[in-house]
C-alpha cells in the first residue's frame, strides 16, 4: 500500500507540528474524567465509542473489578469440571422492533449465540428476560416470541429460563430484551483479544453494513426503499467449521456489531497492541449498502453487522481458512481484507481505492442510536 508519510510542514506555520498523538494511549492519558457529581448519562455513552468505553471502565469495571472483566471480551471463559465454559449477556433495544430480515427477537437469539461463538465455543443454553411497556400489543409480543422460538430451534440452542416485567406506559419503548448464554470451548482452543500479531491476516466473512442500513431504512422520518435485509444470523455453524479445519491458526474472532468493522479493528488493535493495514478495495460491500450510506452520510465501515465475523488468522492458514469459510452459506463472500502490522500506537490504516491512505477510526457520537 502507499506509504502515509509525514508531509512537510507548511512554510507559513508559526510553530512546529506537535508529535502527533498515538491512537489510544494518549487519549487515555489525557481524557477528561467522568463528572460523577454533576454529570449525566447521555446518548454518546451508549454509542459503542470511546465515551462508552470510559463509562464501562470508570463505573462498572471499577465497581466489579476482576480478571475476567479486565480481559475485555464480549464473553468470559472459566473452568468447570469437563472443560472451559463461556458466559455472555446482552441487551436489545433496537428501534424499530421489526425490520427487513428480522426483529428484536431473532436479533437477541442470534446476537447472544454469536457472542459465544466468537470465543470458538459451542453455544448450549440461553436465557431471555423481557421488559414490556404497558399497552404493547400482544400480537407483536407473540410474533417476537415465535421468532425467538424458531431461531432457537433452528440453531439448536434452547431458551431455558426467562423473566417478565411490565412497566408503565412511557417508561420503556415497546419491549426491551436481555439475554444470557453459555457454551463450551472445544479442548485446546483459547482465543484471546490480545492474540493478534504482526503478519497475521484479517478475514471478514461477508459484506458489511447490511444490518445497520436495513434498520435505518425503516426508521421513522427516514424511510427509504431498499432491497437490503439485515444479515442477522447465528454464526456458530460457520465457526465450528473454521475451528475444525484450522482452529490452531485462529488468533481471535469478533462480530463487528455496533460501531462496525472500524470499531472492531480498533478494539483488536488496542487489545493486542498492534496496528492494521487494510485495503478498501478488498472489503466486500453491497452496492445498495454503499449507495444508502452515501446519501445518509455514513461510512459503511462504521455501520453495524449482525451476521458477520472478523477473524485474525495466522498467515500460513489464510488460504485454507478462506476455502472453509466460502464453503459455508454464511461465509460465501469471505474476503482477506488486510493484515496485522507492528505499531505501538495501534493505528488502523487503510489504502483507499482512490490511491491515498487514511486512518480508520472509531465512530464518535451517536449517529445510529438503538441499532441492536
Amino acid at each position, binding site marked *: 500500500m502507499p506509504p502515509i508519510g509525514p508531509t512537510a510542514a507548511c*512554510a507559513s506555520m508559526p510553530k512546529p507540528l506537535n508529535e502527533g*498523538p498515538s491512537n489510544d494511549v494518549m*487519549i487515555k492519558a489525557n481524557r477528561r474524567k467522568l463528572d460523577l457529581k454533576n454529570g449525566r448519562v447521555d*446518548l454518546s455513552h451508549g454509542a459503542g465509542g470511546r465515551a462508552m468505553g470510559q463509562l464501562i471502565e470508570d463505573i462498572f469495571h471499577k465497581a466489579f473489578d476482576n480478571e475476567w472483566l479486565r480481559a475485555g471480551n464480549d464473553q468470559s471463559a472459566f473452568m468447570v469440571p469437563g472443560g472451559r465454559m463461556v458466559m455472555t449477556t446482552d441487551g436489545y433495544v433496537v428501534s424499530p422492533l421489526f425490520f427487513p430480515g428480522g426483529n428484536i427477537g431473532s436479533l437477541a437469539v442470534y446476537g447472544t449465540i454469536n457472542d459465544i461463538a466468537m470465543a470458538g465455543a459451542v453455544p448450549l443454553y440461553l436465557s431471555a428476560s423481557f421488559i414490556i411497556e404497558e399497552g404493547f400489543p400482544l400480537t407483536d409480543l407473540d410474533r417476537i416470541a415465535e421468532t425467538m422460538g424458531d431461531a432457537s430451534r433452528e440453531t439448536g440452542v434452547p431458551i431455558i429460563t426467562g423473566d417478565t416485567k411490565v412497566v408503565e406506559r412511557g417508561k420503556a419503548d415497546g419491549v426491551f430484551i436481555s439475554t444470557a448464554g453459555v457454551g463450551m470451548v472445544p479442548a485446546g482452543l483459547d482465543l484471546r483479544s490480545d492474540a493478534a500479531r504482526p503478519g497475521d491476516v484479517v478475514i471478514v466473512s461477508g459484506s458489511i453494513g447490511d444490518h445497520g442500513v436495513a434498520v435505518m431504512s425503516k426508521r421513522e422520518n427516514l424511510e427509504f426503499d431498499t432491497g437490503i435485509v439485515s444479515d442477522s444470523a447465528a454464526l456458530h455453524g460457520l465457526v465450528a467449521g473454521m475451528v475444525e479445519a484450522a482452529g490452531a491458526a485462529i488468533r481471535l474472532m469478533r462480530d463487528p456489531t455496533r460501531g462496525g468493522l472500524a470499531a472492531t479493528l480498533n478494539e483488536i488493535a488496542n487489545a493486542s497492541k498492534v496496528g492494521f493495514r487494510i485495503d478498501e478495495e478488498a472489503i466486500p460491500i453491497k452496492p445498495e449498502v454503499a449507495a444508502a450510506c452515501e446519501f445518509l452520510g455514513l461510512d459503511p465501515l462504521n455501520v453495524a453487522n449482525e451476521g458477520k465475523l472478523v477473524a485474525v488468522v495466522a498467515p500460513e492458514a489464510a488460504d485454507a481458512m478462506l476455502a472453509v469459510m466460502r464453503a459455508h452459506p454464511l461465509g460465501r463472500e469471505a474476503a482477506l481484507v488486510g493484515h496485522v502490522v507492528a505499531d505501538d500506537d495501534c493505528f488502523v490504516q487503510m489504502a*483507499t481505492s482512490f490511491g491515498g491512505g487514511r486512518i480508520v477510526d472509531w465512530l464518535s*457520537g451517536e449517529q445510529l442510536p438503538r441499532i441492536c
Partner: protein
Amino acid sequence: MKYIDEHRDGRLAKEIARQIAALADPARSYHFMEFCGGHTHAISRYGLEDLLPQNVQMIHGPGCPVCVLPIGRIDAAIALAMRPEITLCTYGDLMRVPGSNESSLLKARAAGADIRMVYSTLDALRIAEAEPDREVVFFAIGFETTAPPTALALRVAIAKELRNFSIFCNHVLTPAAIQNILESPDVRKLGTVKIDGFIGPAHVSIVIGTEPYEFFAEEFQQPVVVAGFEPLDVIQAILMLVRQVNDGRHEVENQYIRAVTRFGNEKAQAQVANFFELRESFEWRGLGEVPYGALRLRPQYAEHDSEKRFSMVTTAAKDNPACECGAILRGVKKPANCSLFGTVCTPDTPMGSCMVSPEGACAAHWTYGRLREHAKAFE
C-alpha cells in the same frame, strides 16, 4: 454505485496527479484554500494529499456550518431548549458542539430538555403539526445550500397556519466570508497565510452560481475553481488552479459543470429572498463579526422568528483560550498546531467546534489523517 464511482476512479486520479506534478513549478509553492468542509472531508477521507507533490499544499477554510457557529448562539439555543414549553429540533452534529462551561445540547437533553434530532426541516414541521401544544423551534444552520429548505419550511408553516413553529436562524453566506478572509490582516499585511487560489464551494454554488465569486477573483487577483465534492473533482480543481497560477490568470472557473451554472438556481434564490434579509453584521467563529455575512427572517415573519418570539438574547462567549479553532478556520494554523488537538480535544470530547462536525478541519484530520504527523516509517 453508478454516477458516483466514476468520480472516485483511482487510475484517473493518478493520471491527474501526474499532470499536477509535471506542471507544478519546483521553484515555488502553491497554497490553495478549499473553502468548504465538504472538500476538507473528501481530501482527508480519500487520502488525496498523498497524491500531491510536496509543494502543493491545501489550507482548510471555514466552510463548515457547525464550525463557524459562535458559542453564544449555542448557549442561546441551550437556554431556549431548557424552557419547559420548547421542543428544539436540530441536526445531529449540533448536539455535541460545546457551549460555555462544558455544556452542549446533548447534555441539556440528558438534563431534561426536549431536544429532538431531525434529518430535515420537514421533520420539524411534522412535529409542530402533530404536537400543537409544544413550541417547536428549528435550529437552522448552514450556508446558501440549506437556506432554501428553511424558506420552504417557513412557507409551509404559514400556509398550514402552524403558529407553534419558529426558526432560530443562523444561516450564513459564503462570498462575504471569503472576502473577509482575503481582507484579514493575516492574508493582507502579516503574510502569515499565503493563499494562491480557492477551491470554490460545490453545493453552495449550485444555489448561487459562479457569478458571485467574480468580484473577488478580480479585486483580490485570486483564481477560483468551483469544484464538486468527489475526490476526482477536487484533484481536477487543483490541476486547474496550478494552471491558472502558472499562467498568471485569476479567473473563476467551473469544474463542477454537471451541477453548477453561472447564475445558479434562481428559484431557490427567490425563495430565500422572500423570507430572509441580510443581517448588517453576524459573528462567525474564527472570523469575528462579518458584515452582511448572515441572514435573518424578514420583519413580517417575526411570529416565526424564534429570536423575536422568545426575546432570545445572544451574549458573546469566549472560546477556551487554548482552543485554536479561530486560527484554524482562518487558515492561519493547522489542527496539529493546537495544543489541545488530540490531547483533551478529540471528537469524543470536543473543546472546539472544528472537532465536532466530520467536515471540521480538526475532526477530519483526527479521524483520517492524524497519523501524518507521526515520524514513523511505513512499509
